[in-house]
């Protein structure tokens, strides 16, 4: 099935370098062209895929690398004292040493599975008499950021392979190689790391990011697919999506809501990252033509109007990097939290003063109207460009508290509420 998809690629993607352009329209260099119609492109995307639009004003801004061994227990103890929460809420360290922790998923028997970024690990965290034991159960995978657990099986998505490990909780020490159940995906790492969200039918929503900051996307990316892990069947549910690494199914309506990271290298304050909802199959969310619902791209609008595209439910702010999100369906938090959305913001890299790196709460009607955002948890940023931690995913625990993954500190936090 993979080759069929590749053969269908005829798009010629162009990308441009906004040469020395500062904020105030300097001269642009000529358009740079990428041939996305050949097979080579699929194994080797543009080498300047995330710096290609770098401007002199923004030179030196690059994704920061966190402490390779995460935060020590002493560092974490000091860190959580700095986290600000609404009255009645408490944060504690649930597990440490979960290096590069990304998406989390619960096993039926209470194992917490955690994916990771470049380290290639998948972890299983189990409770051993109150102490959390972190075990590395899979190694050497290609950016296994996304995880899900269904019918006893652990699913891991590692860029271009959706792998199923049957009866995972009984075999934590010997998961084996698993079985690839879907692989119709480009193999490149550029915006190739993914997230998994299951709907009631057991199909997964899977995002596909474009292999660059901005350009005409090759045909099989900048979209969200819905994939049946049982059969490998897939359908295209959304187009015009840049880099989405988080989403959840609305318990009220069954509709899929997702976070989306907007393009870089325009300025510190634009365009805004987004929270979106798919209300009908095949909606187009604007990328690369229109950002944040109302801002035509300076080069790639190409006579498109923003009114052609589905606007966001809410603009979350520039370079806040919204990733994992969950509808709050528990009973522990105050009643007004029910069905509101908690979003883990990973924080900036392409901004001179970092923002994000917090958890926000969004309330919205089931149709997406009346969306409002309030800050829920903050304090992971120190100074202009310093991180203590970077939240990237959220999952509910059985008792209604939430767990938060942090890939910078290599830790999982628990946030709970009591009157």
């Amino acid at each position, binding site marked *: 099935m993979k080759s069929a998809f590749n053969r269908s690629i005829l798009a010629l993607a162009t990308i441009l370098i906004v040469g020395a352009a500062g904020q105030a329209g300097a001269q642009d260099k000529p358009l740079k062209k990428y041939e996305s119609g050949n097979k080579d492109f699929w194994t*080797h*995307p*543009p*080498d*300047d*895929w*995330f*710096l290609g639009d*770098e401007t002199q004003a923004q*030179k*030196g*801004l*690059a*994704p*920061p*690398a966190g*402490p*390779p*061994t*995460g*935060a*020590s227990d*002493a*560092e974490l*103890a*000091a*860190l959580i004292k*700095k986290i600000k929460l609404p009255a009645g809420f408490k944060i504690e360290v649930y597990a440490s*040493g979960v*290096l590069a922790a990304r998406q989390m998923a619960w096993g039926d028997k209470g194992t917490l599975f955690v994916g990771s*970024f*470049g*380290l*290639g*690990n998948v972890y299983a965290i189990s409770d051993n008499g109150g102490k959390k034991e972190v075990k*590395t159960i899979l*190694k*050497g995978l290609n950016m296994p950021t996304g995880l899900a657990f269904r019918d006893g099986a652990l699913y891991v998505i590692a860029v271009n392979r959706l792998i199923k490990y049957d009866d995972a909780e009984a075999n934590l020490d010997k998961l084996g190689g698993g079985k690839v159940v879907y692989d119709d995906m480009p193999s*490149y*790492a*550029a915006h190739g790391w993914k997230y998994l969200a299951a709907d009631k039918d057991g199909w997964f929503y899977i995002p596909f990011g474009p292999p660059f900051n901005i350009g005409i996307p090759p045909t099989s990316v900048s979209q969200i697919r819905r994939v049946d892990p049982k059969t490998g069947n897939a359908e295209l549910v959304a187009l015009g999506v840049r880099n989405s690494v988080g989403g959840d199914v609305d318990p009220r309506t069954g509709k899929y809501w997702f976070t989306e990271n907007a393009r870089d290298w325009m300025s510190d304050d634009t365009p805004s990252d987004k929270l979106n909802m798919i209300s009908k199959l095949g909606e187009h969310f604007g990328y690369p033509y229109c950002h944040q619902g109302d801002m035509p791209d300076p080069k790639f609008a190409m006579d498109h109007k923003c009114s052609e595209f589905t606007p966001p439910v809410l603009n979350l702010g520039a370079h806040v990097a919204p990733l994992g999100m969950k509808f709050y369906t528990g009973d522990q938090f105050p009643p007004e939290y029910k069905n509101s959305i908690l979003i883990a913001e990973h924080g900036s890299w392409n901004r*001179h003063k970092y923002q994000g790196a917090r958890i926000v709460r969004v309330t919205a009607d089931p149709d997406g109207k009346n969306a409002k955002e309030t800050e829920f948890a903050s304090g992971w940023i*120190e*100074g*202009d*460009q*310093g*991180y*203590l931690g970077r939240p990237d995913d959220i999952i509910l625990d059985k008792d209604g508290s939430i767990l938060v993954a942090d890939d910078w500190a290599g830790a999982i936090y628990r946030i709970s509420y009591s009157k």
Partner: protein
Amino acid sequence: MRIVLLTLSFAAVLTNAATAPAADVAAGKAKAELCSGCHGEDGISQTDNIPSLAGQPDQFIQWQLVFFRSGARKSEQMQPIVEQINNDDIRNLGAYFASLAPPKATKPDDDPDLSQKGAQAAVGRRCASCHTDTFAGTKAVARLAGQREEYLLKAMHDYKAGVRSGGGMAAMADVAYPLSEEEITALAHYLAHL
């Protein structure tokens, strides 16, 4: 603000606030006995295809050790070594090698024309965007200035062949793939003589 400051401020914040033990250079030096057989005394390699580690950024050393440990970077020589070290060792080794004086470039440059070509290639391939203008590296990004020439060749060939991915953002694999053999030769010569 330059991102160089980030590492410093982050380290400072954590160590001050948390009263956690700061990385211990002396302990790192002791542990580095594991390394000196191949990587040389004081982190200056005398061996073909083995990189010098002296003056590498703290985080770069740490990340590579973590990558070796997780299997994300594969090496038969390094595998048994990283099995003997824990997180504290990794922090201490990072601090130790970063504290050492970086290798001095071989002088004089026996092929200035080749270095000139390398300098042009470095501009064309945007190397300084990550490795900084002096090629001293920063944070998780390697120092290239003064590295052994044949090791630089090996590293670029490994990236180009997809044998080495380069970690999180995978940038190096993508950067190295389109490099021509001439560019690789020139870049290695130029960087080794900085």
